[in-house]
């Protein structure tokens, strides 16, 4: 799923990767691909993560990892950083999800059963990136679908998600509903349908594998 999601990161894009699975996608992006990684705390052109020994105490990404600069990196304040987000300069954001609904509703900021720790920058990323994709396991650790007909948790943003990458499939939010677009190697359509909490549109033609 990480490798598949990485294929949607194209040359020339400005991209923001959420904490967790989204950040792990990076290892599958070709080293030579010209991409600008954005971090909410004020970096365009985020470079590789550094270990503690080589870390710069002043240079972390929004997830708190010590990162590095690249030739061409720029730093800026938090207002400029979110101006980039809200004015539509983010071509793509990859986010995690607690729940994502068939209509693209996303819930990823209030942990079920816990008090909220606050949404940080998630709301603006979800609402304003030109393309919002979610990367998540298809079901939670209890085997319950994370893709649902309607979100039960408070929304991060309504109708924002266009694509969902999971360990089982790639699904796209369409005006007609959620479409099964690609299948992971070794996974059947029936398995995906069974693991999904929302109706799926399954095309007639054979699905691409990843």
């Amino acid at each position: 799923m990480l490798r598949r999601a990485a294929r949607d990161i194209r040359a020339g894009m400005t991209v923001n990767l959420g904490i967790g699975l989204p950040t792990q996608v990076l290892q599958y992006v070709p080293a030579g691909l010209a991409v600008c990684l954005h971090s909410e705390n004020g970096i365009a052109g985020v470079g590789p993560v550094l270990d503690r020994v080589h870390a710069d105490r002043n240079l972390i990404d929004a997830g708190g990892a010590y990162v590095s600069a690249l030739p061409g990196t720029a730093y800026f304040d938090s207002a400029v950083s979110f101006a980039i987000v809200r004015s539509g300069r983010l071509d793509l954001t990859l986010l995690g999800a607690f729940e994502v609904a068939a209509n693209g509703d996303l819930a990823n900021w209030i942990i079920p059963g816990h008090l909220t720790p606050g949404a940080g920058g998630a709301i603006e990323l979800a609402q304003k990136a030109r393309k919002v994709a979610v990367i998540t396991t298809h079901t939670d650790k209890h085997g319950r679908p994370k893709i649902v007909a309607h979100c039960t948790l408070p929304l991060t943003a309504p109708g924002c998600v266009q694509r969902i990458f999971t360990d089982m499939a790639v699904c796209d939010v369409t005006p007609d509903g959620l479409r099964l677009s690609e299948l992971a190697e070794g996974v059947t359509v029936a398995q995906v349908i069974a693991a999904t909490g929302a109706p799926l549109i399954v095309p007639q033609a054979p699905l691409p594998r990843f």
Partner: protein
Amino acid sequence: MPLPDKTCGIAEAIARILDGARIMLGGFGVPGTPFCLIRELVRQGQKGLTIIKNDANETGMGVDWLLENGQVARLITSHIGLNPRAMQMMNDGKISVEFVPQGILAERIRCAGAGMLGFVSDIGIGTLMAEGKPTVRVGDRSGILETALGADFALVHAARADTFGNLRYAASARNFNPLIAMAARHTIAEAETMLPPGGIAPDDVHTPGPFVDQVVLLPELPEVYGVVER
């Protein structure tokens, strides 16, 4: 992971602009005005433009070329007192002019660049500038609604650029340039010097690359950029 290369020829960059476009121009007087991009726009001759710029330059400079060539339909500006042609054309109804207080012009542009719809200020209350603007109550105070001012294109003048579009301005040539770079759907920067990525240290960038779509290297600086002999 290299950063994208946005370098571009000047003709190709300006050719994206179509008749009727809304164009923001950097500059406060001479410093920061993208004269070469404007000259190319005059050469290509796009018509019916809305020009958004702090001022209308002076006779024989920048905005004045566009006015002389009949390319401007509308001007949104803070003052045009140094350009008699602009005053005359406004007087004769050949262009429409919207005046905005200078700092409100800057904020309306930045507001669009920050992806917001508008802001509430108390500037101009009790003057002509507030007439016709909606009143908004904010807590126990009352202000007037100023709308975000975006554009199709921003033409920016930078002292230095790298190929990714990170920009640096010189002295008072900064003025509106960083703001319009944020506020347009497509931002074209001309640069006196083009550096490889990393040529501008990350802490020294004035306009970050993600705001810039194309960067054009100026081969040689025409005289119009020089000190004005008055």
